[in-house]
């Protein structure tokens, strides 16, 4: 405390610093700020970010921890280093190779590092895939630890959006026997990578203490397709899309009064029948060998045939202008 006060007093008496600050030219060194931040309030900020991303909810249920050990994780893709902080976005191609993990550890202390994703499990909604698990890391040297699951790059499927990839560092009180989890390496069967952090921690809670946390988010890119086909030997790579809730349709009435009948009826028609009509119309217009006709500049100036009912005119106008359902098929 005394040293802090003297440092602040030193700043206050520094005329050069005062002038810089007054002229808005004072630039704080961000890397040094981050070092001090990690030693002071950083762990609480990491915890707040993890709560924002639902990390503790999905890994430990109701429990949480304050990550007091600074976990420095970065990927090396090509010439540049891609760091992992607490929720930043990465591309799977950047995370293709095993990351470098550094943390401060006393010599002889034992650690366990787990990388899991709680999102987009293929078999069960509440399970995780373990991407990397190294146990009994002595003195912070991850490469010399006991690899239980080898590193597998993230594979968020196309269309699912952003998945979380979470690194959790545990401190061990003594050597932990991981022989029950041992798999034949490299482990390329996804169901063998099914994991539950909650169960894993419950079984070993006397030996392990969570100490560090880092996570990132990744969405699909082309490297996922090649990973699924070449490494995981899958014949196809899936494309998913978000399942929007069905639009609300009020229950049908016996006598729908004061409503245009065509719009009312369209709301309750069979979707397949509608699709069929639109596709048949489209196929009639297209010729297999001729190029499509250029669109008209003023499509609505073509006169309607005499005696066309008004509801049909509306449909024809919509078709000419490309409004409504015609865009779906």
């Amino acid at each position: 405390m005394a040293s802090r006060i003297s440092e602040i007093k030193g700043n206050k008496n520094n005329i050069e610093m005062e002038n810089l600050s007054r002229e808005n030219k004072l630039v704080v060194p961000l890397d040094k700020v981050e070092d001090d931040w990690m030693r002071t309030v950083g762990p609480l900020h990491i915890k707040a970010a993890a709560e924002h991303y639902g990390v503790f909810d999905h890994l430990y249920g109701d429990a949480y921890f304050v990550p007091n050990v600074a976990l420095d994780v970065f990927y090396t893709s090509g010439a540049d280093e891609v760091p992992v902080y607490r929720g930043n976005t990465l591309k799977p191609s950047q995370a293709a190779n095993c990351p470098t993990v550094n943390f401060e550890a006393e010599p002889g202390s034992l650690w366990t590092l787990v990388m899991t994703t709680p999102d987009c499990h293929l078999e069960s909604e509440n399970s995780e895939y373990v991407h990397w698990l190294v146990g009994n890391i002595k003195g912070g040297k991850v490469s010399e630890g006991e690899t239980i699951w080898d590193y597998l790059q993230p594979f968020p499927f196309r269309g699912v959006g952003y998945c979380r990839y979470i690194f959790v560092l545990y401190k061990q009180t003594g050597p932990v026997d991981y022989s029950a989890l041992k798999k034949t390496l490299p482990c390329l069967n996804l169901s063998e990578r099914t994991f539950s952090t909650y169960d894993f921690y419950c079984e070993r809670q006397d030996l392990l203490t969570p100490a560090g946390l880092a996570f990132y988010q990744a969405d699909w890119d082309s490297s996922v397709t090649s990973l699924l086909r070449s490494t995981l030997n899958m014949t196809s790579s899936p494309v998913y899309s978000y399942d929007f809730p069905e639009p609300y349709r009020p229950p049908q009435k016996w006598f729908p009064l004061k409503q245009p009948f065509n719009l009312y009826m369209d709301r309750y028609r069979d979707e397949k029948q509608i699709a069929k009509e639109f596709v048949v119309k489209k196929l009639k217009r297209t010729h297999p060998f001729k190029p499509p006709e250029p669109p008209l500049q003023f499509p609505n100036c073509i006169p309607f045939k005499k005696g066309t009912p008004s509801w049909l005119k509306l449909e024809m106008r919509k078709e000419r202008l490309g409004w409504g359902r015609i865009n779906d098929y």
Partner: protein
Amino acid sequence: MQTVLRRCNPLFSFTTPVRLSCSFPSYIYNRNPRNLEKLCIARKPAGYHLERPGKYQFWHSVRLERSSRHITASVIHSGGGSPPVTASTKEWALRRWLYSTNDVGAYSNLGRVLGHRCLATGIQEIHCDLSHDSGHKTQAFIQELEKSGVTLKEPPQYVNPAPSDRERPEKPWLVNEN
């Protein structure tokens, strides 16, 4: 304790059911609570009729608290909860490099630090309600926040069109896909 997830109303629950594939399951779940916001699908609160516009109509917003001696900037989420990103001149990490904790230099440096922390937390777009003409100190804060790479405008919410709607808006999650 496993969280039990239901597939009742996906816009309000924190799962993302998605469908269609060949040998893969027809439904998988993305449990990431921030996923729908990143894809611009999540509901953005519309606010009340008589409310000040922009009061809660965002996913993430920057908030600046000025006290007599210190300034604290935080990013808040409209869904509530503790702020995911905070930076303050009360922090020793920042305090030791500053001449004063509430002059222009403090404001601009707080903006830089907050911007850096936002990017580290994966928040690239923030709604900013601090008006640009509110004073040179706040302006310096906003300028530095923008310079650090954060966009001070959130994309609009994508509303899934009904079959009868005239237009089919572009899907924001397909635009950025390579």
